[in-house]
């Protein structure tokens, strides 16, 4: 099992060092992209919370008018 893992790590190593180490750049770019994605999601959640609090504030200010 451990030898298998070492072999897998070794093959990753060859892929990363092949082609003028281009895959290292891909790894870096993907890490940045995942970070940006997480940031986008976090910002969306924050805006969601803000919007819902604004909504409750609005409904407290102007309670819905009874149409009858």
């Amino acid at each position, binding site marked *: 099992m451990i030898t298998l893992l070492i072999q897998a790590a070794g093959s990753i190593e060859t892929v990363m060092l*092949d*082609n*003028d180490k*281009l*895959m290292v*750049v*891909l790894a870096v*770019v*993907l890490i940045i*992209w995942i970070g940006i*994605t997480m940031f*986008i999601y976090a*910002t*969306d959640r924050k*805006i*969601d919370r*803000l*919007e819902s609090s*604004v909504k409750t*504030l*609005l409904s407290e*200010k102007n309670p819905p008018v009874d149409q009858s």
Partner: protein
Amino acid sequence: MPCKYKTIRLAIIVWMTLVLLGAFSFGGVWLNIPKLAMLEHTARNLYFHVPMWFTMMALTALSAIHAIQCLRTNNPVSDIRSRIAALIAVIFGILGLTTGSVWAHYTWYEGTNIWWNFDPKQSMAAVQVLIYCAYFALRSALDDPRKRARISAVYNIFAFVTVPFLLYVLPRQLESLHPGAEGNPAFSEITDPIMRVIFYPAVLGFIGVGWLLYTQRVRLARAVMTLQNIEEDEHLQTKT
């Protein structure tokens, strides 16, 4: 947050991840890009640098559409949309300028210390970004929100009209190192067809990312506007 937005967001993120993977694909049978002298691996910058400008142009168009809408309807939300689209456009423009500068430094100006050489394409793009920066200067000079919305909408439409001239027409009339200029073949003639497989999806993906950032900012600005309106109402009520 509507379910539709979540789906689109996920789609854009997955799409962009695939584009990034494709942009670096190498050594396989498919998507091998030709290795040219001077360009070498930097040819891959085509997938990142050029979509910045496409995204900027898409956002300026969006901004101008909402500026027209703002003049027609006087709707403050159109003003917000127009402003935010211009803001994200400026950000993508600055990214386009910096990435272009870095790319040029290591290819055209290899072995020199030049980062910025006032190449016509470069200069015109910088002027374009400055024209949109002036939009924000104009906005900050006007206090009355309705007046600000109308005057800046008019300026915005003029700014948009300059986009095709500054980014397409003028650089093509002048001698420039940038592809698509006088004495230089354009994209269609010098780009290997295989690069289009990644290039066009990259353009779409970056426009998608621009749209995500735009949508977030619009929602934020709308929430701020509602809060300001509530504050003003309270202020009026305490006065009377």
